[in-house]
């Protein structure tokens, strides 16, 4: 089993703590079938860019980036993250950088212990290149979804959204929600601020889909031609309807684009329904 990135440095006052949904992401992407699909999909072409939207602690992004030789079949990946919460941006950057460093350390130890070993038998021809490459985290950006990213810039997008159905959506954050750490904020104001920031991590509005809909609508813009997105949905989000809808994108527009969506992983089967699913979205 691939190692779970360390998040011991993260304060979870305002940041989503890795939970069942986060771990479903790790399990799904590192499953033999999904890793094989991704490895084949990214077997050629320039270094892939990986973006996690709403990255929180950064555990999902760090896992994929640090284990990219196994999951994507290549280490030459460039990672980016976005989050509304500045603290989450700082946390993600640290989680990813630490995970990459740890992975490199382990790889070096293994090589010293057994110089004959090939770290990834699937890429034996380029194994030497793969081992000498250290994956790079480009930047963590404080922003909503993928807003400032250029069209076609992302090859692999990961989104564990706020998916819980709620009557209303929290207001959009403003600069005042991120005061300087030195400010003299009362305890109750601090608590209120933290509760508000945490609500952004789970509150999904109508059907729990309001935020996810915005991201889905932006996929055709932000994904490259070979781009792939993984989006987590819960049962109340009606994942099967979402999958069907995505498959209908582009039809009748004359662009010749065919969008695909498949359930790549799920957890907690109850009465024939999965509690959480992860959908893979891409175009062919």
């Amino acid at each position: 089993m691939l190692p779970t990135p360390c998040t011991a440095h993260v304060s979870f006052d305002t940041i989503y703590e890795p939970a069942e949904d986060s771990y479903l992401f790790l399990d799904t992407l590192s499953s033999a079938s999904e890793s094989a699909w991704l490895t084949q999909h990214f077997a050629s072409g320039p270094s892939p860019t990986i973006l996690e939207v709403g990255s929180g602690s950064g555990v999902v992004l760090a896992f994929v980036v640090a284990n990219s030789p196994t999951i994507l079949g290549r280490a030459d990946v460039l990672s980016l993250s976005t989050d509304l919460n500045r603290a989450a941006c700082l946390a993600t950057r640290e989680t990813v950088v630490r995970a990459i460093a740890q992975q490199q350390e382990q790889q070096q130890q293994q090589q010293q212990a057994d110089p004959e070993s090939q770290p990834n038998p699937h890429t034996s021809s380029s194994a030497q290149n793969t081992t000498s490459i250290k994956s790079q985290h480009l930047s963590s950006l404080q922003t909503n979804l993928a807003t400032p990213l250029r069209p076609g810039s992302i090859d692999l997008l990961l989104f564990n959204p706020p998916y819980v159905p709620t009557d209303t959506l929290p207001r959009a954050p403003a600069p005042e929600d991120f005061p300087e750490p030195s400010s003299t904020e009362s305890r109750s104001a601090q608590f209120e601020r933290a509760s508000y920031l945490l609500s952004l991590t789970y509150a999904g509005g109508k059907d729990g889909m309001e935020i996810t809909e915005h991201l889905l609508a932006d996929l055709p813009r932000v994904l490259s031609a070979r781009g792939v997105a993984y989006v987590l949905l819960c049962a109340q989000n009606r994942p099967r309807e979402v999958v069907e809808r995505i498959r209908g994108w582009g039809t009748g527009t004359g662009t010749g684009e065919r969008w695909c969506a498949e359930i790549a992983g799920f957890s907690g089967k109850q009465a024939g329904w999965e509690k959480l699913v992860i959908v893979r979205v891409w175009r062919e």
Partner: protein
Amino acid sequence: MKLLTANFLACAVKGCKASASSYPLHFKDAELELQELDYQPVFLQNIMPRIDWEGLRMIANELGFPRLPDTKPEGDTLNDETTLRDLHRLLLETHVVEGKLCCGNCGHEYMIKEGIANFLLPSHLV
């Protein structure tokens, strides 16, 4: 944030999306930091095909780096060690830790603090 990030960013303001001058964003009052990395020529060769050279040249020029070649190094020039080492330093080792990113279309300035760029917009621009 690594300098290379600028190649993937444009202005977040809705009205700027269609404007060519909303990319690249221009660094202002940038404080740079060099974080050394082991030299990885293969990685760089794999990154190059996806670089928008014009945008990179403009940014590097504005930040006062030595002038980049007029055309993107391809083929044999990508095996030239001096060229590769310069690009390695610029793209992967150069970080912007403080400063602003400015849109050439609407003039909006995005603050960079401790290497985190803030693209949150006031409500009237969303």
